[in-house]
């Protein structure tokens, strides 16, 4: 395909229009001069077909899940079913104002209520509030709950959150934004919690521990019961980062492990589209003693009616309205399309796929953590590193072969991390193809390392000069012209 390089602004021609708007036959109104902007916003002037062609061409510069395998670790890039999109955009959902009276919203409120219950059942937590807009927003909500809980108990010195060094960057960032100090503890070689390090970090200033389980290396915290006991004995709360919940579907519940608070990324485990970086959704769930702290509002059932309700000691509001409603509808449809009969198959299939890739390639890639992984695993670069080929080069070469690259250089506990998460939706044939290409790349690393160090070669653009972009920031069209 031809390299398409136009910006919509560069197609603009004065006088061309793309809208069809009639003017009502009522008096015109204009603002007093001193309140008006001086010049019109310089938006493009293009026809409707210009817009359609342009964004169609632009879309083709992207790789999506429907283009091919997208093993981006910790992002759970599964297929986004069409029916979810179709049903979420029914006009009885799309054309509803958020401030309508509750009796005109009973269908939506029922979906909220039932989704809250389903997430509770799946995660083993007592109650959910759907409000948070994304995973990081859910983390923030969860941390606010931790803070509000300790404040309620007048336990004001608890201002430290413990986080393992294998955690997602959002964990420490959320803790800081919530006004906590972060104590980072060093993990065991497999990324699991080092109990000694945890013991020495715990104190009467501990507010809580944030944990991703399975962790970012795809390893289950085998000591979770002891971790939970230690944290609770110290007076802290245990937070579950739900980024990797997909692995546990059908197998285990965070609530049973002693977690007090969770957030769940609906755009990962429950298959709502990632949208190029959002909208996500991060419902926050809590154990019984924290129910009163949930962010407002939550939906309750009173008799046959569904109503908004405010939690007694709520941390407050987290958005203008009630979160990303259009995302909840998709997640609800997704869960209903599996039902109790099949939802439990997701975890095992996702885990099987990850182990299959790992065990098919561990003779040629450095596998720092042996044994069965859960939904994802990490390779620490090539086994034979004599060619100087790095993880970055392998990732770029994969693009040439029509695959998306894995998450690279994360987790930070390995220097050449390549984190692979296939999800349950991929067939054996797709995985075999990926394995074949990875082996081909290993061969190329030995025979023609330059080919990898200069990859990609078949993409519409090749390696980018990122330093240049940062040195001379061009961040809008006006900066170009």
């Amino acid at each position: 395909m031809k390299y398409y390089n136009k910006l919509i602004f560069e197609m603009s021609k004065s006088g061309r229009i793309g809208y069809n708007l009639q003017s009502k036959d009522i008096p015109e109104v204009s603002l007093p001069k001193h309140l008006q902007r001086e010049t019109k916003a310089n938006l493009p002037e293009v026809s409707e077909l210009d817009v359609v062609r342009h964004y169609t061409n632009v879309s083709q510069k992207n790789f999506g899940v429907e283009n091919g395998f997208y093993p981006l670790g910790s992002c759970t890039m599964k297929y986004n079913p069409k029916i979810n999109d179709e049903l979420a955009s029914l006009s009885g959902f799309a054309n509803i104002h958020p401030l309508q009276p509750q009796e005109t919203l009973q269908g939506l409120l029922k979906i909220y209520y039932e989704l809250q219950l389903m997430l509770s059942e799946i995660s083993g937590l007592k109650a959910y509030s759907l409000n948070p807009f994304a995973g990081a927003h859910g983390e923030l909500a969860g941390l606010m709950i931790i803070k509000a809980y300790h404040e309620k108990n007048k336990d004001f010195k608890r201002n430290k959150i413990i986080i393992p060094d294998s955690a997602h960057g959002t964990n420490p960032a959320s803790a800081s934004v919530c006004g906590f100090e972060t104590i980072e503890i060093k993990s065991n070689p497999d990324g699991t919690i080092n109990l000694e390090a945890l013991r020495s970090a715990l104190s009467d200033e501990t507010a809580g521990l944030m944990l991703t389980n399975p962790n970012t290396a795809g390893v289950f915290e085998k000591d979770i019961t002891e971790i939970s006991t230690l944290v609770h004995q110290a007076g802290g709360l245990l937070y579950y980062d739900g980024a990797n919940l997909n692995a546990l579907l059908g197998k285990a519940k965070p609530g049973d492990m002693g977690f007090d608070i969770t957030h769940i990324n609906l755009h990962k485990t429950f298959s709502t589209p990632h949208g190029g970086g959002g909208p996500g959704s991060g419902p926050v769930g809590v154990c019984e003693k924290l129910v009163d702290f949930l962010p407002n509002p939550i939906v309750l059932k009173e008799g046959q009616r569904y109503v908004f309700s405010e939690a007694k000691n709520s941390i407050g509001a987290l958005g203008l309205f009630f979160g990303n409603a259009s995302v909840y509808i998709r997640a609800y449809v997704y869960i209903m399309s599996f039902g109790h009969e099949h939802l439990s198959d997701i975890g095992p299939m996702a885990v099987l796929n990850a182990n299959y890739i790992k065990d098919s390639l561990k003779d040629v890639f450095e596998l720092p953590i042996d044994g069965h992984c859960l939904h994802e695993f990490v390779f620490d670069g090539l086994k034979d590193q004599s060619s100087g080929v790095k993880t970055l080069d392998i990732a770029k070469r994969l693009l040439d072969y029509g695959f998306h690259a894995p998450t690279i250089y994360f987790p930070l506990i390995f220097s050449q991390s390549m984190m692979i998460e296939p999800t349950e939706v991929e067939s054996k044939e797709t995985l075999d193809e990926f394995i074949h290409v990875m082996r081909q790349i290993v061969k190329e690393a030995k025979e023609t390392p330059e080919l990898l160090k200069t990859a990609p070669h078949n993409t519409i653009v090749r390696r980018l000069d990122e330093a240049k972009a940062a040195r001379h920031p061009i961040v809008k069209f006006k900066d170009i012209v």
Partner: protein
Amino acid sequence: MHKYLPHTREDIEEMLKITGAKTLDDLFSSIPKNLKMNKPYAIPNQLSDDELTRHMQGLANQNRELIIFRGAGAYDHYTPSVVKSLISRQEFLTSYTPYQPEVAQGTLQYIFEYQSMVCELTGMDVSNASMYDGSTATAEAMFMAYAQTGKSNILVSETVNPRTIDVIKTYAHYRNIKVTIVPMKDGMTDLTSVSKNVEDTMGLIVQSPNYFGVIEDLDGFADIIHQAGGLLIINSEGQALSLIKTPGEYGADIACGDLQSLGLPLSFGGAYLGYLATKMTYVRKMPGRICGVTTDVDGKRAFVLTLQAREQHIRRAKANSNICSNQSLMALAVTIYLSTMGKEGLVKVANESMKGAHYLYHRLLETKKFESVYPQPFFKEFVLKAKFDVAAFEDQCLDQGILGPLLIGDNQLLFAVTEKRTLEEMEQLVELVVSCK
């Protein structure tokens, strides 16, 4: 098995062999026995696609689609068909954050176009790739001011949407920031009160058009706030920016707000998106993704995430914000909407909303059932005080399929009119009012 789970029995057996596990359960040997689920999920039965469709249609039918005269942060504007059609393309819909720029030029390019349009609308230097919504964007603007000034007090005008104020207060509380509400005068932020309280604060958050629909005259605000060492943060909803004096022209340091009014359906409050734009001086305090232009090794123009040293995945506990995912697809919708409406159309549609609102305002006053509350110029929302009993008014409206104005206390009603409201619909509301006692 299931249409989203492709493995056959044979596949599973062959794959298990490679892993060395005898059964699927063996793969989970790392989970202690006592933590394993011992009964199936207590969730509903699986529904077939046909059953699901009927079930969801039934739920959708339990929500009422109304003729909407309510705004307060969510506006019933028309969305051209091209918006939904184009954002449904899987290349946009199913991809994620552009971590591999060579295969994500589509996302990066529209983010760049989106940033360009936000800068045009606001008159600012730099925009990020989007925020969750207008309220969280405003809270993040406060964090920027906090990081920039090191002061822990912020002023917020009383005329800001109370829902936005609630979110600001939530965010502020947990970061030990003190929020002081600046009283209003005649429906506008009172500059005298601002001057009195501005010392030792990180700045002021003000909204225009404000919660009451009034367009604030913010001349002189920037000087007073800057002299005291603070930042001026102006919140505006997207459509209004096509007409009113921009945050940039007022000398604001940060512009923020919600863009739902630019092509996104009401969707019960989400997914919407917030925008955040600032001066280049403060870019390093800005949260979220920023896309920039560069070249590839062959010299081709290309787009890339830039200035990432600000972000959580690099700075971790030292980051000023925890933003990771944003509302990228909604930013695309807005970009397509703004391309479709263009330079002239955007102004036209805003004018259509404004003149409809003024028509209804005068027609309602003519009924003698209302008195005017604020004398200032307004855009598409306005407040009237009812001289009749408003308790039953909402239900009377609903009986006619109308979502009436929002009661904001003291018999005051907040009306909103968009270009979608026809003369017939407005006259229907006027007639209803005439019959109120």
